[in-house]
């Protein structure tokens, strides 16, 4: 059980690096943005994992009389970050759409080639 206690962090590391791989290795700009979303999701997971307390429940008081609650602070940060994340992703997609209109391509190297000409 001790080792299982770190599983969430490992998944965080792997997910983060999968997203990072998509960002650095893929040439398609939309794919890069998808990788960035995965990267974001990994960070969200890390924060929420750190906020979990054994035997606790969500930090919303109820009549049930539970006294152990998970940490509300990471949840607040991530809750806002999700909405900010989708807005910034939309901004990135907007830039990609404009690039497609100007260059006729969304592949990084093709855009660079056109720029060099």
């Amino acid at each position, binding site marked *: 059980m001790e080792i299982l*206690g*770190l*599983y*969430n*962090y490992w*998944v*965080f590391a792997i997910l*983060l*690096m*999968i997203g*990072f*791989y*998509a960002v*650095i*290795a*893929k*040439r*398609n700009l*939309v794919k890069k943005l*998808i990788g960035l*979303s*995965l990267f974001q*999701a990994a960070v969200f997971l890390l924060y*929420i*994992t750190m*906020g979990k*307390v*054994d035997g*606790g*429940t*969500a*930090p*919303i*008081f*109820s009549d049930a009389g539970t006294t*152990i*609650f*998970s*940490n*509300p*602070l990471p949840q*607040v940060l991530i*809750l*806002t970050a*999700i*909405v*900010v994340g*989708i*807005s910034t*992703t*939309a*901004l990135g*997609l*907007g*830039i*990609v*759409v404009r690039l*497609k209109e100007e260059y006729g391509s*969304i*592949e990084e190297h093709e855009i660079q080639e056109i720029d060099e000409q």
Partner: protein
Amino acid sequence: MIVIFGIFLLTLLVITAIAIVRTDNLFVAVMLMGIASLLIAGNFFLLDAADVALTEAAVGAGISTVLFLSALALTSERERARSSNRALSFTVVAAAALILIYATFDKPRFGDPQAPSQIHVAPWYLEKTPEYIDIPNVVTAVLGSFRGYDTLGEVFVVFTAGIGVLFLLGSGVPLGSLPREKINEGLRHHLIPRVVGRVLIPFILLFGLYVQFHGEYGPGGGFQAGAIIAAAIILFALLEGERRAMSVIPARALLGLMAFGPLLYVAVGVAGIVLGGNFLDYSVLSSDSVKGQQLGILLIEAGVGITVTGVLLSIFHAFAARGR
């Protein structure tokens, strides 16, 4: 047992992520992102983060897929080139992953109540929320009052992103050469989705309002409600076509909503100064400081909800109106 469920869901998440990176079909990647969002929302719920799971549900299920698909419709569905420097990138990524995993061994165990992150400010929030604000949902209390300044910043980031998208896509020559009347009709000829969708829209709106105003008592709040209400109107736009949706809420009105939300938020903050407190100190808004806090949270949550609705809808319309 629940720990095992979490581990299973996380494993599925990793498989999905690998599949997302491996496929060269962007449409498939977007679909798999939808699955990843569902899995991660389930996980958030298992990790006691009901509010976060609701946000992920509201944003990930509808809006994110719709935005990616409309971007794909304007660009292309296939990745043409193979990856560059695959071996090098893979080495870098694998090394970094190993270092990160090595670092996790120093982390406190999952769910440890004595972990540094649990003993610093969180107990204070949990202890003082009933005293100062007296609402059941501590997340909303922290979001709206204790860390209201953070949230103001986030609202302005969302607002700025919306303005940025409008600058990029808001005007200009449409890309496609399609006849407008043919494209703008949405799914009007698909009778079954249309009928069911029209039945659902009022309920989604109602649910959005419930999430907005029930946010102090259960999972919910402005961010989730804004996304849900935006999703309802996006559903209308999908069913009835862009043009009708724009005539229901014109772009000008959306711009007004986008600007009004942050203004309302700041106005509440300034009202605190005028009434003799600090910026975003709601205690002075009413003669009873607890009542004042509750009123302040209600108002700023409304501001957040209005901003998020306005921004997400403007972004959607900017994409949908382009190149159609």
